[in-house]
């Protein structure tokens, strides 16, 4: 019998290894939130966690509160809150929601492709 925890740990290890070895791309992220709504806060927390975990020291995060800067919502074509935009590296990616689905976030940010490893 395979120890699940071990197995998962293995995967994560190899993942991190792969990332650390291959991925040196710099990330420019922009998160749109609306004040301190629960979704906004949750999104910020989720994102910070993911970034710290996978993009340590190679990301830049700008948080825009559209309550304070309503004009910013238009040029970014923001309609949902929270919205995360990956501006760099290309291609541009738009993620909406509180970023609680980590797998989707990772795929969306092109940090790793889960399917390749499962």
């Amino acid at each position, binding site marked *: 019998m395979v120890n699940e925890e071990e197995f998962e740990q293995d995967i994560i290890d190899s993942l991190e290894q792969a990332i650390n070895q291959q991925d040196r791309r710099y990330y420019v992220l922009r998160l*749109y939130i*609306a004040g301190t*709504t629960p*979704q906004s806060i*949750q*999104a910020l927390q*989720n994102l910070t966690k993911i970034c710290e975990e996978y993009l340590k020291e190679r990301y830049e995060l700008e948080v825009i509160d*559209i*309550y304070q800067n*309503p*004009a910013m*919502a*238009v040029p970014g*074509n*923001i*309609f*949902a*809150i*929270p*919205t*995360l935009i990956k501006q760099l590296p290309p291609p*541009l*990616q*738009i*993620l*909406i*929601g*509180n*970023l*609680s*689905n980590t797998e*989707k*976030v990772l*795929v*969306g940010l092109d940090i790793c492709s889960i399917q390749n490893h499962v």
Partner: protein
Amino acid sequence: MKKTQNKQLPKCLTGIQGLDEITGGGLPKGRPTLICGSAGSGKTLFSVEFLVRGATEYGEPGVLMAFEETAEELTENVTSLGWDLTQLVEEKKLSIDHVYIDPHEIQETGEYDLEALFIRLGFAIEEVGAKRVVLDTIETLFMGLSNASIIRAELRRLFQWLKSQGVTAIITGERGEHSLTRQGLEEYVSDCVIRLEQRTTEELTTRYLQIVKYRGSSHGSNEYPFLIEEEGISVLPITSVGLNHEVSNDRISSGIPRLDTMLDGRGYYRGSSILVTGMAGTGKSTIAAHFAQATCQRGERCLYLATEEAPQQILRNMLSIGLDLHQYIEKDLLRFEAVRPTAYGLEMRLVKIHNWIKEFQPRSLIIDPMSNMSLSGNTRQSKAFFMRLIDFLKSEKITVLLTDLTPGGTPLERTEIGVSSLMDTWLEVRTLETNGERNRLLYILKSRGMEHSNQVREFLLTKQGIELIDVYVGQGTFLTGTARAAQKAQEEFEQLSRLQKFEQKKRELESQTEILEAQITALQVQLKTQHEVLDSMIKQAENNQKNFLKNQEVMVKLRKGD
């Protein structure tokens, strides 16, 4: 009554031609209205016009949130209608915000809301001080985002929010198969729902508008045809609300003096509707042309809608009977508009006529022939069309003369389209076929409000135009044409021969008298002679007697006897 009216919802004039009439003052003010319809039914245009009219005519700036088209596309699309959205945006009367949702670009990673839409809307509303908002088409959200329950909750919140903002909003929605909108938007918008539809019947496409729901207000519930034309949307109420046109007692000539005489001596009423019916080739157009001429001679304008013949052909033909209409065209008193009725649907045609009238300001309108109009619609539509047209003309005090072709073999005195009841004056031109010729007859079937002639007149087309001649009525018969002429000649002949006979008899009698008189003279002479003879005989006898007596005396003396 007035109190209930006051209690009605405050309304927001749309400025869309005809719509405010149907809704009794526009859309519910400060509330959202749903406009639904299939693709291409005119939803976007309708909404844009609502904003443009608000900004330009009612001083109510607007916000357009477009989910499907960009501001540039929208601007381009409506330029042909004479609306300059760019300028309105520059003048801060309009704000266009394009919300672009591409499902391929978007990853949903958890719970979210549409707060940013609210912020954007609120920002735009504040920016221009908007009173009107259009969301076109918000259903795109359902296609771009997968979490329908979030969208539904957010829409409900959005409409509530719009109400709280006090803006009059239009939300457009795509028509669903079994419901008004695909996503059931009608559930959220409860105040006013308008449905747009495009239908093709007999190859003619007509757009219709229907007010499905208007809470707290009475509204016309019919399907109203509407058009997208050069200056925007125009909705045509099927009938004007009441029959309260101002009527005129003014009379105008028909252009045919004898016909005027038949019409109480003074011609048609101004602003009345005149129908000229008859079979092919009976001279209906000629009556119309005479009317056109009479109108122009008064210095008034006449619009001639030729639906069958080309204007040039009409001009040529009328010249052959001495009507020179060309001079009036040059003086800009007469205008021909020739359009094949099949070129547009009836609705389009109605609006075209409205526009021509608005532009040319005629006092008389001729439609020749109206029977051609019925080609582009069924009988009911045609009747509605004419009813609306005549209503409109009456309200403008424009006299209208329509000709109608009665097809052979149908009962006379019945129009194809069944519009006779709409007509004030009805002239019937009929042909009568006798003795190998056709003759035209004209009579007045009806003419409201005047003591018109009940006589049938023979109708002649001469080089000097129309002449109306009394038909022969007498000896129990009714004759026209050559028969009338023959009868007249016959009568003249008979008259002559009667005269001759009389003369002859007279002469005979005279000569007889003469003879008798001569005889009398002769007899008198004879009598005189006889008297003379008698006298002389008497005298002689007397003489004889005297002589006898004398002789006796002498004898006595001679004899001395005694």
